[in-house]
Structures are given as structure tokens and as C-alpha cells.
């Protein structure tokens, strides 16, 4: 059981240092292309009537999260900016997810489906 994970703190620090190294316009077009393909795939599922919800919903959720990640990381520059910005944003996101997961559980949303 080797534990060689201590080095990440050093690399995290150096990540913070090289903020504002924003990507090229070509890269932005590539990201937009990926987002367009993912959106097309999402929309295509609308016509797949034979696929059961147990498979379809997780697939849609995964594509949604990937799109979210690409916009936040590349277009909002979270990948390149100081990690404090990400911490503030992710804190709000996690707080909202936890609060409303509890809210939906209290109202028995998961049982109703």
C-alpha cells in the first residue's frame, strides 16, 4: 500500500502561481465544438424511446456534468485562475446540492421518481 500523494500540495501551489495563462482562440473553438457535439448527443436521446429511464437519465446527467465542467474550467477560466475562486464557487454549489437533496428527500421525491 504505497502512499505517494503528498506531492500534490506542491503542484497545487504552482498551479495557483501561473494564473492568467489563458488559452488561444483556437482552443476555445475546440471546446465549443465538444460542447456542440455533447448537446447534439443529448438532444438525440429525445428520439430514443426504447431506452429505459434507468439508463437514459444517468447518461443525460453525465453529459450535463461534462458540459458544466467544460464551460466552468475553460470559458470561466477556473482551470487557470487562482484556486480560491473555485473554492468559493464550489462551496455554493455543494451547499446548494446538499440543502436541496435534503429538501427533496423530506418531500419524498425519490420515492415518487
Amino acid at each position, binding site marked *: 500500500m504505497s502512499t505517494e500523494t503528498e506531492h500534490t500540495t506542491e503542484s497545487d501551489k504552482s498551479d495557483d502561481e501561473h494564473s492568467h495563462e489563458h488559452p488561444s482562440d483556437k482552443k*476555445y473553438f475546440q471546446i*465549443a465544438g465538444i460542447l456542440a457535439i455533447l448537446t447534439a448527443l443529448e438532444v438525440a436521446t429525445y428520439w430514443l424511446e426504447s431506452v429505459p429511464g434507468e439508463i*437514459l437519465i444517468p447518461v443525460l446527467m453525465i453529459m450535463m456534468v461534462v458540459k458544466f465542467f467544460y464551460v466552468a474550467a475553460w470559458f470561466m477560466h477556473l482551470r487557470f485562475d487562482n484556486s480560491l475562486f473555485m473554492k*468559493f464557487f464550489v462551496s*455554493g454549489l455543494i451547499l446548494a446540492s446538499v440543502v436541496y437533496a435534503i429538501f427533496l428527500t423530506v418531500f419524498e421525491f425519490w420515492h415518487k421518481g
Partner: protein
Amino acid sequence: MTNQTHSEETTTGLSHNKLGMWVFLGSECLLFGALISTYLLYRGRFADGPAPGDIFDIPFTSVSSFVLLMSSLTMVLALSALQRGDERNNRLWLLTTALLGAVFVGGQVYEFTTFLREGLGYTTSPFSSAFFTLTGFHGVHVSLGVIFLMSLYVSSARGNLHKERAETVELIGLYWHFVDIVWIFIFTVIYLVPSPTS
């Protein structure tokens, strides 16, 4: 009008404006989380009115979603142009982003009026109230974004938006991308996940 690098001016070494914007966006997650959760609770309660599965026009909304998604590209290109000192292209991409946003809002107005004609008003059912509140709030955010973008465009056209003020464009850009991210959620959860039919 001060807008230089904030590394020496602030306690964190980071721009307070930018930090404030990220805190604001974090808090917006709670607002939209509440609206999305409420919609999920009420989507099956359509009383005698139309059900979501009967009324949603997925091909039309897909086009609107694509338009908003591509506006995120044009927004980041506007920022990129200004950071290079290319004010002409900055104006071009700002205007394009505002136009794409206006097309999205126009599509939403068309969708709302179609629903009204088909008998889905704000008070028709718990589903309709939750739906109009959620998508309406998002629409207001996009509309505000269009106003911000147009004010940036006018500022640039008057010669007041230079490379040194790129952070102003970046802050509006963060807001704009957030609005796009929220729609990514709404489009999947409200429109694409199979909805109840009557």
C-alpha cells in the same frame, strides 16, 4: 477610473471585484437550486392543465439551447480580443453575444406565448407555476446580461473600454457563462429527462 492588476493592492493579492463575483455566483447556485428542486417536486402535479410531456417542444428548445451555448464562445472571444488590445474584435464579439442572448430571450417569449395559447397559464397548476418561475427567472438573468453586454459595447464604441479594463469584461463574462451553465442544468433536467404526460 482605476482598474489595474490588484496583486499589490489587496490583502489576498486577488481582485476583490472578481472574488465578489465568484461569491455572488456561488450564492446564485442556491437560488436556482431552490427553483429547480421546486419544479422537480411539482412537475407531476398538472391538475386539469397540460402536462409537461404534452407541451414541451424539444426541437425548438434545443435550438435555443445551442444558441445560448454558442454565446459563451463569443463571450470568451470578446474577452480574449480585449486582453490582446484588439478593441474592434472585442466590440464585434460583444455585439454577437448580446444578439445571441436576445435570440434566446425571444425564443423564450415565443415559447411562453405558445404555452399560454395552449392553455398553460402561470396559475393553471403547480407544475405551470414552478415552470414559469424557474424559466422566467433564468430569462430575466439573460435579459440583464444582454443589457450589461450592450452597455459594454456602448462604452467601447465611445472609446472607454481598453485593455486595462479587461477585468470589467471578464466579470460580465463570468456572469454570462454562469447563466449558460444554469441553462445546461435546466435544459437537461426540465426538458430532456422524460416528463410526465396526461
